[in-house]
């Protein structure tokens, strides 16, 4: 891969990374959806560029499906759900904003530390990007842990999934088209099921806050 190309992919990586960071800072669920759409846009563009430059039609098909599902359909779908579940438009973090930022910094430093240095063996030209991908994975996992809201947990999971497929794209991993479509199908079904559960949780608990879901411990 040429230097210029690496630069473009690194830029898309940064967009996905910053979207994940801002997911920690926004409170409103709709803002989370917008950030997820932006992150998904960066992911689908990465796939599209890889397919276009490598003259790989199946990769371009995958990129188009990703764009359609994650950038166009998912935000509208989530918007409708949030509209239905009025009163659940925001959620907060367990840690306050300064502490959250501190943890995020720590996670980025950890991703760039010696611990993950061996992974650069897979792509020696671009350890910085590999580490950024690892940081994106860690930050997405932290989003799942740090948010009180069930909806935010769901977006955190989807952000983690975005970060992992970005990782795969970066290493140039190719799977046969049926498997790629199988993976996307799994994700779509996951979104639908998780959304259905949001409705069930809201009906049964009257809220989407994980704070109020403590029946199992009773």
């Amino acid at each position, binding site marked *: 891969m040429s230097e210029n190309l690496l630069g473009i992919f690194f830029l898309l990586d940064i967009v996905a990374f910053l979207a994940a960071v801002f997911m920690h800072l926004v409170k409103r669920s709709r803002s989370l959806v917008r950030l997820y759409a932006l992150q998904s846009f960066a992911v689908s563009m990465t796939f599209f560029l890889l397919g276009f430059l490598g003259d790989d039609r199946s990769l371009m098909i995958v990129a188009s499906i990703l764009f359609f599902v994650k950038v166009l359909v998912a935000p509208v779908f989530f918007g409708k759900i949030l509209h239905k579940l009025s009163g659940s438009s925001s959620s907060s973090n367990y840690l306050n904003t300064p502490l959250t930022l501190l943890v995020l910094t720590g996670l980025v430093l950890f991703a760039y530390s010696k611990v993950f240095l061996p992974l650069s063996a*897979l792509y020696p030209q671009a350890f910085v990007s590999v580490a950024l991908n690892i940081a994106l994975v860690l930050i997405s996992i932290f989003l799942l842990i740090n948010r009180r809201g*069930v909806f935010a947990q769901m977006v955190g999971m989807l952000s983690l999934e975005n970060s*992992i497929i970005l*990782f795969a794209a970066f290493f140039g991993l190719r799977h046969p088209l049926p*498997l790629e479509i199988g993976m996307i199908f799994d994700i779509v079904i996951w979104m639908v099921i998780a959304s259905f559960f949001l409705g*069930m*949780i809201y009906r049964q*608990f009257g809220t989407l806050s994980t704070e109020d*879901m403590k029946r199992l411990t009773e």
Partner: protein
Amino acid sequence: MLLAYLIATPFLAALFLVFLKPTQSRSIERAVQVAALVGAVLCANLLMTFESGSIQVVGKYLALDALSLLLTTIISSVGCVVAFYAIGYLRQEVKKQIIGPRRVKQFFILFELFLFAMLVAANAANPVLMWIAIEATTLSTAFLISFYNKPTATEAAWKYLIINSLGLLIGFLGTLLFLALPQGVIGGDIMTWADLRAAASEFHPVVVKVAFLFILVGYGTKVGLVPMHTWLPDAHGKAPSPISALLSGVLLNVALISVLRFKGLVDLSIGREFSSTLLMYFGLASIIVAALIIFTQRSYKRLLAYSSIEHMGVIALGIGLGGVGTLAALFHMLYHSLSKVLLFLASGNILLRFGSTKFENVSGVMKALPITGGLFLAGFLAISGLPPFGMFFSKFLILSAGAESHIGVMLIALIALAVAFYGFFRHVSPMLFGSLTEGVERGEASLSTLVPLCILMGTYIIISFFFPEPMLAMLHDAADMISSK
């Protein structure tokens, strides 16, 4: 082609059920029974015709080797028994107006899809397909766990969905690292387990370690290894009993075998010490934590769930020790499947009669349900590894496999197993032999919820003393695969 038909059977059954009306309960039951029997017969055929050491490739994406045959045998045989039990169990629930006919139809559609996903995962020739199928098991069972639409069940199902999906995504990251490893070595697209095994000796040693850690944490979450086990007692405790039985007795094995397939690659690449040590200590931690929590349990279904964590720990320990420990662990897997499914199904009968899963509300099972109680007691003795049950030999072999090299670990494991036994006994004894809870009727509910239990117990006893030759060859082959021979 037999394998393809076997895998397609539950999928076609689910598809067929979609077109039936909920009121056609007899047709729904017949379809489930036919699918279960066809699956069992095809599986028996596969087992009889399997050639030792061979890999039968079916198309691009499926392959049958000894490990997948072991899993397929467990899924099809246990799945068949559970399907028959579930029919009787749900009839009782409909009779008691706990659920309606629409829920019965939904149950069996998801049940068949669950079996289909497990069969694909077991026989996937490609690690990515295996991941897709294991994720599909999570998706198909989430609604089964929240089946009763109660807040606790919904909470358990959400916890299950989030924790397992997180674990599986981490496992997927590990899978991708394994797939990225050979690119610089042999070039081209890596598709199958066989490709990966062929390239394993050239893998970068440190990256292999990082990748296996992701795999162990990721798929280990689905196995229920401590400390990633937190979803398991809630999900197994809240799901309908036939589903708890399949989750505990079958799905955990599917996830564990996934870990072991990657372990084989690690061992070929950097030797067996790294993966074996990790498995051994994760296994030991699972046994200790489960044993301590079993002691303080208040619900018999959760107790059985913790017992599953304990036994997954025993299997991981055996595989970690290697040698005869690996073979013993595979025997243990088989025995655990049969006895745990028996216990969960018996607990379903108890729940139907007593209406509670709490020990404080359930007493005198032997008086109310003498056959179920007797089978529960036999299942308890079997799963505790008392002689002459087969699990006694598998546990004994695992512990003796490490007696020389890891005497300290074996002693701790032995003490933890004794604590678990006592904890189990402490709860089960008053539940079975105490005075009958007031207002509870005596007498078994129906034959259809008893016969499957008897079949499981009978099978367990038979294979404790007489192990059929094709199954023995399959287990030896599978042990060799895990040991990378």
